[in-house]
C-alpha cells in the first residue's frame, strides 16, 4: 500500500535516530522476517520523507564506529506518523470487519 513504508520508517525512527541499514534491519527483525525492505524502495522512500521535512539526515558514527548517515524524525514527522497510524488503524478495522463476515 502506498505510504505504508514511510509509516514503518517513521515508526522506527520515533524510537531514536538510525541509519538506512539499521532501519531496514529493524523492520525485518521486528516483523519476524515478514517485511523485507529492498534498498530499491528504502532509499526512494527516505528521499520522499526528506523532501517533506518529516525527517532530517546528518552524517555520524555508527555503533561500531563506522561513518553512516543518520535519519532523525522531526516534529512534522511525528505529526504525520500519528495521522498515518490513525488512518491505518481505521483501515485495519475496516478490513477485519469485511474478513470476519461469515
Amino acid at each position, binding site marked *: 500500500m502506498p505510504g505504508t513504508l514511510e509509516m514503518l520508517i517513521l515508526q522506527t525512527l520515533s524510537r531514536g535516530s538510525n541509519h538506512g541499514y539499521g532501519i*531496514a534491519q529493524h523492520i525485518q527483525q521486528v516483523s519476524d522476517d515478514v517485511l523485507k525492505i*529492498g534498498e530499491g*524502495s528504502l*532509499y526512494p522512500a527516505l*528521499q520522499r520523507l526528506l523532501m517533506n521535512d518529516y525527517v532530517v539526515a546528518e552524517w555520524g558514527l555508527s555503533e561500531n564506529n*563506522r561513518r553512516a548517515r543518520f535519519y532523525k524524525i522531526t516534529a512534522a514527522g511525528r505529526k504525520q506518523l500519528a495521522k498515518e497510524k490513525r488512518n491505518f488503524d481505521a483501515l485495519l478495522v475496516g478490513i477485519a470487519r469485511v474478513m470476519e463476515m461469515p
Partner: protein
Amino acid sequence: MKPWKRIRYLLNREAFDRELQEEMRIHREMAEEKLSQLGTLKEEAHYAAMRAFGNATLAQEASRAEWTFFFESLVQDICFGVRMLRKSPGFTAVAVLTLALGIGANTAIFSVINGVLLSPLPYKSPQKIVVMKENESLPNVMDIQRQASAFSLGGAINAQPIDYTNGPEPLQIRVGLVNSGFFETLGLPPMMGRIFSEAEDVRGGPRVAVVSYTFWQGYLGSDPHAVGRTITLNGNSYTVIGVMPESFVSPREHADVFVSLWVGYPGAAADRGVHFMHTYWRLKEGVTLAQAQADIAKIDRRLAEQFPSEEKERRTHLIPLREAVIGDVRPALLVLFGAVGLVLLIACGNFASLLVARAFVRRQEMMIRAALGAGRGRLIRKLLTESALLSVLGGAAGLLFAQWGTHMLLALTPEKLIRLNGVHMDTRVLLFAFVVSVLTGVIFGIAPALLAARQDVTGALNENGRSTTASATGHHIRKILVTSELALALVLLVGAGLLIKGFSRLRSVNPGFNPVGVLTIYLQLPATRYAEIPKQTQFRRELLARLNLLAGVQVGMVSDIPLGTNYVDHNFVIDGRAPIPVGDEPEVQTLAVMGDYFRVMQIPLRAGRDFTEMDREGQPLVAVVNEELVRQYFPHDNPVGARIRWARDAGPPRWMTIIGVASDVKQSGLNQPVDPAVYTPFVQSDEVWRHWMTLVIRTDNSSSGLIEQVKAQVWRVDRQIPVSDVQTMEQRMAVSLAQQRFNMLLLGAFAALALILAGVGIYGVMGYTASQRTHEIGIRMALGGQRRDVLRLIVAEGAKLTFAGILIGIVGALALTRVMAGLLFEVKPGDPAIFAVVAILLALVALAACYIPARRATKVDPMVALRYE
C-alpha cells in the same frame, strides 16, 4: 510539493549524488559484515549482500528521481533524441519532410478557416445581428423599424458605382447608399468625426458623406483634418463628416464612401416597390431568432394587406449575419479542410511506417537498454519523445510551407472570402500547428514505440539480423499502413476527379454568346446631369457613332452585362391573355440594348428580326424575347407579333410588340438556369434610373491601344465620365468560375500530394520486402528462376496491397464524397467514370512504385545474394 527543495537539489546535485552513493556503499558493507559475522565466507558474503541489495544503479536512480522535476528527464530525452536524429540525417530529413508537407498544408487551410469561419465578425456583438435574405425597399425598412418589437436597430445599404471627380482622371468608386441606422446597427463608431444623424437622413438633407479607411488613405492622403473636406460624387459636392476605422468593412458589399440614400438617390428611396437594399437588424436583448422571425411574419402580413400591388408576395426570412456572410463558402472550406486532413493522415502513415522500419534498425540498442535496467515504460517514453521531436520539427518546417501556401491560397481565393477578417498566422494558427504536430508524433509514434520496446532481452541480444516474429509484426503493421494510405489517397483522388469533371462541365457550358475578342467597359451617367431620357440617349448615340468610326471594331451596348452581378426584373403581362391578379404577374429579366449588341456578342436570333436604327423614339415600341420566355409563355403560339407590357406602369399602357426571338444567354451565372428575358431598345426606355450601361466591343486586334482610344472617345463626349471598369468578356467569365476553380485547384493539389505520399509509402514497404527476400531470391535465381518470375513474386505482393487499398478506398469514397454534392456542377458524387479512372491511376502509380524495388531485386547477383546475411 516543494519546488524550492527540488531547485536546491538541482544546484547541489553532484554532492547529493556522491552522498547517496556513499550511503548505499556503507549499507552494503554493513550487510556484508553482518553476514560474515554469521559465519559466511567473506567472498560469498560480498555477493550475497550485492544480491540482497539488488540493482544499485536502479535504486540510486529511483532515489534521485524523487528529487527531480518530471521535465528534467524529458529534457534528457530530448537532448538524446536530437543526438540520435543528427546521427541519421537521411531518416530525419525524410520523416520531417513528409510531416512538413502534411502539417504545412493543414496549417495553411486552417489559417483560412480561422480567418473566415472562426474569428468573430468585426462588429459589436455580431451574434445579435440578423440579416433579411430578401432585399428590401427603404419605405418597408422604415415601416418595419416602427412596427417590429424584436429589433432595437435596423440598417440598410445598397452599394453602387459612383463617379469621383476630384482626382486627375474621373474614377469610379463605390458608394454605399445607407440609412442612418446602418452604422449603429453594425455598432462600430467612426475613427474620426461622426456618422449621419437622423435629421440628416431625409429628403433634401445636407450633402454629407462618411468615408471608409481605405478611401481616407488612398484619396484623402490620410489627412488628419479630413473631416470638413469636400469630395465630388456624381458631380455633387459632399462634405466629409466622418472616417470609419480600418476594421470596419461593410458585411457583404464593398463601399468606399457612404451617403444617405435619401440624399444620394431620393427617387429610389421613396419607391416601395424597388427592393434593392441589403438590410441588417440588431436583435433586442433576450430576443431569439425564432421570435424575431414570428414578429417579422406578422409585419409581412400587414404590409401585404396594406400595399397589395407591391408587397403581396412578402415572405421575409431572417438569418444570422455570419450565415449571410460566409454561408456559401463554408461547405467548400470544410470539404477542403477534410481533404487536407486526409493528406495529413497519409503523411502520418508514412511517418509511422518509417518509425516501424527504424524500430528494427535499433532493436539491439533497445535490448541493451532493457538489459541495463531501463523499464519498458521508460523506453516507450524515450521513443515517443523522439517521434514527437520529429513531428515538431516537421511542424516547424510545415509552418514555412504554410506561410508560402497561405500566400498561394490568397492569390487564388475568391475575394469575398478574405475581405472581412483577413487571413494571417495568428497565435491560434501557431497553436493549431503545434498541437497537430505533437499529437501526430505521439499518436503515430505509439505503435512503433510499443513494438520496439517489446522484444525479449535474450532473443534480441542473440539475434544477428534476420526476420523474427517481431519484425514480421512490424512488416505487417507497415502493410496495413500502406493499404490505408492507398485507400485515403483514392478518396482524395475521387474528390478531385469529381471537381475537375464538374469544372470542365461548367467551362463547357454554352454561355449563349461568344466571349472571345470582346472588350467590355462599364459606364455610368451621373444622374444629376442626365436626368432625362433624351439626354441619356444623346450621349449613348454619340458615343456609339464615334466608336463605330474606329477601325476594325463592332460596337454595342447593354444595360446589364451577362455574368455580372446586377440585373433588373419586371413583372409583365401579355396582351389578350386572361387578367392576372395584381402581385401575381410573372417576372422577367429586362435588358436594354443599343447598337449591334446581338451581333457583337454573337447571340443568334432564332426568329424575327434584330432592332434597327428605325426602332427609335416616337416609333412603335418593340422588344426581343429569349427562347426561355417563349418556352414558358408561348409554348404553342408564335411570339413574334404578340404584345407585352410591364405590369405596374403608371399612365397609359405602353404595349411593346415582340419582333424577334434571341437564343438563351446565361445572364446570371454559368451555373444558374436561364430566366425568361426581354430586350428593349435603350432609346425607347422610359426608365430614367437606368443610367448605367456596359459597352461591348468586338475587335480583331485586342491591343491595349484600343482601350485608350475608347477612353478618349468617351471623354470627347463627356470629360467627367470615369472609364475605369474595363474587362474582356473572357475575364468576366473567369471571375464567375473563380470559386469552382479555387475548389478544384486546391483539392487537385491535395490529391496529387496524396498520390505522391502513398506512392512513396508503398515504395518504402516494397523496398523493404525486396531486401528481406534477397536471400530467397538468390536461391531462386541460382536454381534457374527467371527474372520474370522474381519480378512477379514481388509485384504480386504489392498488387495485393494496392487492390485492398483501392477496394477500401472506393467504399470510403462512396460514403465521403456525398458531402461534396453541393460543390459539384452536373456531376453525381458516385460518378462511375471518375471512380474507374481514379482507381486505374492509383493502381498504375502503386504498381510502378512496386516495380522499381522488384526490378532492383532481380538485378542481384545470385552469389552475392546467397552470401548476404
